[in-house]
């Protein structure tokens, strides 16, 4: 396709969009709504993921040591472990004090100080990733001098299960919404092709290439796709910014803080724009295909 053809195709798609302006606006609007929901789900997914990660990093592994063991040796191993976020050491004496505080009545612990202290020395370990808690706990349990490890196995298991369900749900809803939007574009472009059916059939008789015929419709579909998505992205950005700001100001518990990192959010918006444009192009391609068989 040379420059003259490209210019002609551009002009045709602009004329066609102008002629069917209301239909194009409605289609772009419905794409905007579909992709807003899709984008909303994606933002929710990112935030849910961060929330689960936050909860996960709060899950502690209790590492109980045998009596008289070399604490430094174990400490060194924990320092060198790549999957560990942080740890604190709680000596048996400190443990007794903490236990007393939790009981609220130190009198009950009289006689348990010193050699009679039944509590072991322990480390409280936090992993980098909630998914690794079971594996890290098992590994630490095998260190010499470690009597046992303990963590909220049930909580971690439940969190992982919820994450899996949430991801599957988001994926299914997103695919359904994307399919709906593509079907809509196919219908709109088909109306546009039908309106220009005579022109398309004459083009074939005049020796126009399939790409020459297809290109204005592709441009038309892609324009509807990306304008719809642009509107969706703008609306999402405004709503998300307001929500995020108010959540941060409310200073709720640490783990439901919204994601505000641009590096995480920008790919979602760019991805939506690309997806909307590609969906527009794909829908047009399908619509025009049938009319090219002359």
């Amino acid at each position, binding site marked *: *396709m*040379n420059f*003259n*053809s490209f210019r*002609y195709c551009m002009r045709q798609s602009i004329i066609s969009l102008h002629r069917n302006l209301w239909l194009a606006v409605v289609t772009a609007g419905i794409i905007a709504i579909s992709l807003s929901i899709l984008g909303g789900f994606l933002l929710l997914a990112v935030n849910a993921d961060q929330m689960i990660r936050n909860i996960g990093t709060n899950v502690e592994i209790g590492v109980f040591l045998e009596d008289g063991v070399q604490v430094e040796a174990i400490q060194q191993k924990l320092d060198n472990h790549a999957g560990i976020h942080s740890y604190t050491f709680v000596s048996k004496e400190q443990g007794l004090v903490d236990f007393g505080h939790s009981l609220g009545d130190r009198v009950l612990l009289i006689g348990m100080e010193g050699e009679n202290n039944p509590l072991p020395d322990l480390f409280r370990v936090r992993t980098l990733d909630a998914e690794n808690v079971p594996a890290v706990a098992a590994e630490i349990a095998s260190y010499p001098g470690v009597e046992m490890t303990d963590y909220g196995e049930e909580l971690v298991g439940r969190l992982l299960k919820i994450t899996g369900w949430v991801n599957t749900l988001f994926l299914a809803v997103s695919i359904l919404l994307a399919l709906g939007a593509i079907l809509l574009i196919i219908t709109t472009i088909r109306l546009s092709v039908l309106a220009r059916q*005579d*022109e398309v*059939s*004459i*083009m*074939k*008789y*005049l*020796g*126009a*290439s*399939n790409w*020459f015929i297809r290109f204005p419709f592709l441009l038309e579909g892609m324009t509807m796709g990306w304008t719809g998505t642009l509107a969706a992205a703008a609306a999402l950005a405004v709503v998300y910014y307001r929500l995020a700001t108010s959540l941060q100001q409310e200073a709720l518990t640490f783990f439901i803080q919204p994601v505000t990192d641009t590096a995480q959010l920008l790919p979602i918006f760019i991805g939506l724009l690309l997806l909307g444009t590609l969906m527009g192009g794909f829908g047009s391609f399908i619509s025009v295909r049938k009319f090219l068989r*002359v």
Partner: protein
Amino acid sequence: MIELNNVTKQYPGCTVPALDNVSLGIERGEFVFLVGPSGAGKSTLIKLIFREQLPSGGKMLFDGRNIAALKQNQLLEHRRQIGMVFQDFRLLKQKTVFENVAFALEVLGRSPKEIIEKVPTALDKVGLSGKAQSFPDKLSGGEQQRVGIARAIVKDPLVIMADEPTGNLDRDNSRQLMDLFETINQNGTTVIIATHEWEIVDRMQKRVVALECGRMIRDEQQGGYSHEL
């Protein structure tokens, strides 16, 4: 230039072939009438030469190339060498006469400069210089068909093929149109016209290829329509 060897076309679901073992050769610069009653196979023959349809059997050559075996880019090149004229004119109502003719060059990616040069010349050849800015609805049937012819000749094709070009016109307009085709032919363009209007064929005294029920029953230089058909 065009060579058909034992060409057969059988449409799916039909018991009788639309074309049955037709062999024919057309030289560059010839003027040929395809005659016969409705259903004789005239339009099918035109569709096969244009490669709108594929033959069920036999071989068809255009400028030495097997038409049925053309690849996509060769097919475009093939179709660009043929100017088609239709009974129902097939003009775009929302475009002016000038734009309709220019359309033939635009779809081939020709430059605006070339379009501005060639379109008025084509309109001049068909006698419509003064109607360039009119819309098809404002023209008579004869004038609309002239626009169709201008659109066909503006890309300088080797062949003009017309399927019942006078089907919607009165006698005077038909006669004028045939004179126009003859002028185009005298300038070196091969002209193939499918028609069942015997008056035109008898008057023109050109080569006549007569078809009946898909079979070629006569191929005569300077022939007439023959009333028996």
